[in-house]
């Protein structure tokens, strides 16, 4: 898998249906641009429009996301992110 600022390609030889490293059941029909050859399938993401497409697919439940609360590290990171958000909220209120 390679990724750039606004460009990412997920490549896999394992599952030609998704062309991605993620299983078909997880990705669903989320791949915006499937590029297939005989031995390789690639799923290409190009910038904001594709991100919007993925968010739309997620909102429809076609991509199954993991719950961060299922892992301790995910839980701790969620708590830290919430702390930062609330810090700015409180700072603006006290401002």
């Amino acid at each position: 898998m390679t990724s750039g600022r606004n460009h990412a390609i997920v490549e896999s030889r394992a599952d030609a249906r998704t062309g991605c490293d993620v299983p078909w059941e997880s990705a669903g029909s989320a791949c915006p641009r499937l590029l297939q050859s005989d031995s390789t399938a690639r799923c290409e993401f190009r910038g904001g429009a594709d991100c919007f497409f993925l968010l739309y697919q997620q909102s429809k439940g076609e991509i199954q996301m993991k719950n961060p609360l299922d892992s301790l590290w995910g839980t701790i990171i969620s708590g830290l992110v919430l702390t930062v958000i609330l810090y700015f909220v409180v700072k603006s209120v006290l401002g």
Partner: protein
Amino acid sequence: MDYVPALARWLHFMAGVMWIGLLYYFNFVQVAALKAATADGTAAGITKHVAPRALLFFRWAAVVTWLAGAALLSDKFVDAFTLRHGMAGIGVGAWLGTIMLFNVWVLIWPNQQKILGLKPATDEEKGAARRVAFLASRANVALSIPMLFFMAGGWSHRALFGL
């Protein structure tokens, strides 16, 4: 009545340490221990003898913490919960603590009663209860991080908020 805030603060800290300490015990120790204990057939030791006692102190410590916190806020209670008059920091902490208390009594405890067999439940209901209790408990761990940041935000935090 000057001794009331001092006693309330002391009680708030002691009960809070017990509440959050047991919350961290459940999430950092017991969840993993139960998985290992289930694998070697010794889970009953935890579910019969440890978990019910830990839950008893856990849920009542939550109540005492909240009540002592409310007594400590005293006439600033409304200002804190409405984030007014410079009470936004402690107010956010108070709101998070209140949400956590709700999770304990409305989501964690009723579902733990089903899981531990203190209330009748089918296997399907137990499975659903296990997931709800687990997520509510994990949510409380996540909420405890900002809650402690804002609760502990006395004079030491003033510089962080540019005061």
